[in-house]
């Protein structure tokens, strides 16, 4: 079979790649430009102005280690949002893994009645749009006192994350042989030792992927944080949205670059695991 692509198709692929990468190029130009007037294609002067205004990088003359530390310790909005996003993401990831671990084990290894129904219930948040549950939940959370609190936001982030973590880990346990655990137990290891020495190493690679996805889904939540955080919990996506609406391209571009940085890093680390058969992939489609 002819394995070489026709010339015309090659050019089309190149053109497609260039078009697909244009937004990213635009982000970089905007974030490092100053007075980028129409119709210049490339700005005349590069500038860190947007980053200085964002208070992520100190003014010229103060760009020493001390300058950075002083600036960041003054707790500007971007640092606050970054800290919030990371904290919420990490908490939600850890909690979701701990909750999903036993459930995934049972779903992956055992057969029982209603298993299909339970899996269907677990994945239902991936099918219906978040707006369907968050409006009702918003009012409940106000009456429960969760509204506007970190815990409320963490709790609501669990809803879109839980299905992916459970599904990904169920997949791991479906290919896992629990006999090794029995052997360790008969050789005298206790439950905790068995978990650390036998179970954990076997499921660790898949668990890391599940954790990275969980973090990424939490990282990119806008609507849920906005409605449950009630303006009191500002995360990065909220900052991106607010800046985008206010119309300052360099600033918007700079925040967006901060916002997508972990996403691209995670793609690098997980590209090996990202395939159409992985339930994590469908998580990517939703962020």
């Amino acid at each position, binding site marked *: 079979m002819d394995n070489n692509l026709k010339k015309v198709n090659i050019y089309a692929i190149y053109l497609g790649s260039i078009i697909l990468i244009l937004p990213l190029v635009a982000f970089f130009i905007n974030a490092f430009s100053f007075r980028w007037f129409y*119709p210049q294609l490339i700005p005349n002067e590069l500038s860190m102005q947007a980053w200085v205004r964002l208070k992520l990088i100190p003014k010229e003359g103060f760009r020493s280690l001390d300058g950075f530390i002083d600036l960041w310790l003054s707790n500007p909005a971007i640092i606050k949002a970054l800290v919030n996003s990371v904290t919420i993401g990490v908490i939600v990831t850890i909690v979701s893994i701990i909750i999903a671990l036993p459930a995934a084990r049972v779903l992956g290894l055992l057969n029982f009645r209603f298993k299909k129904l339970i899996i269907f219930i677990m994945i239902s948040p991936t099918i219906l749009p978040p707006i369907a549950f968050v409006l009702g939940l918003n009012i409940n959370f106000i009456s429960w006192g969760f509204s506007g609190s970190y815990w409320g936001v963490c709790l609501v982030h669990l809803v879109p994350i839980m299905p992916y973590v459970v599904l990904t880990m169920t997949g791991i346990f479906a290919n896992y042989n629990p006999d090794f655990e029995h052997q360790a137990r008969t050789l005298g290891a206790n439950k905790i030792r068995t978990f650390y020495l036998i179970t954990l190493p076997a499921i660790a690679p898949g668990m890391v992927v599940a954790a990275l996805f969980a973090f990424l889904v939490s990282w990119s939540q806008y609507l849920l944080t906005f409605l449950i955080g009630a303006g009191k919990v500002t995360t990065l996506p909220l900052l991106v949205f607010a800046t985008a609406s206010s119309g300052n391209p360099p600033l918007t571009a700079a925040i967006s670059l901060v916002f997508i940085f972990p996403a691209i890093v995670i793609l690098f680390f997980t590209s090996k695991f990202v395939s159409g058969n992985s339930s994590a992939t469908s998580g990517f489609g939703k962020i």
Partner: protein
Amino acid sequence: MGGDKLKIVLSLTPPLLIIGTLFFGGILYGFLQSLGYQPSIGKYDINFDAYYNVMFSERYAKLFWSGLALNLWVSFVSTFLAAVLALWGALSIRKTFFAKKICNFIFSLNLPMPHLVVAVGMIFVFSQSGLLARFFTQIGFIASPSEFPILVKDKYGFGIILAYVWKEAAFFFIILMSVLQSLGENFEELAQSLGANKWQRFRYVILPLVMPNLFSASIIVFAFSFGAYEVPAILGVNYPQMLPVMALDFFLNPDLNARSEGMALSMIIAMIVMILVVIYFWLTQSKIRKD
């Protein structure tokens, strides 16, 4: 077996509790509110007024039906275009050529990008002072920004469609690549040796083989784009407005009576998505039975 049963129940309870109370609880409460049940402002009667108001009242009917039409148009077109683009990309990138790896990476690059950022990127590229408008001015195609077509914040939803195509094409692409990889080229070689030409190999060999995955991915993408808020909020206009944006506007309205309308809208969105998913399952099930 008794111990097993207890273990199963104990292991499954925490995630089911979270999804049960937060997700289904939220939907149930939203549904009750859409029926006018709002104890917080002293309304306890149940009726379908909010649904009627949203769909048929003189004030909102036009907004609703134009919004629904925009929703259907945006979701169908963006799903279809993303699928076609990805299919073409995946079939081409399978072959060997210069810089294949880089192209492959770029085609999957949009996968982890949040929709929010993709929407902002569309403004930077396609607005009248965006990258493309500047490029066309430089090469002398247009003389001023106003000659560049309005592609973002336009009433036909082009900007929204572009954003979804950008983002979801990468999603389709990854899925198609893995399907094509697992199929190998045996089927095509067989078809070729039997005298099938290029088009026939595509139409009667590749397409039926990738169709199940392509179809289920389409359902996910359609359902998502039908109910998502961020992209239409950034790239949309006030009229016509996509339903999720409209629902949130109602919900955030200081007039608490408008809340029921917002809830009713979100229930309508959810119901349409649900009907779609049921049709999908029904279609695939009946197909399996036929086979």
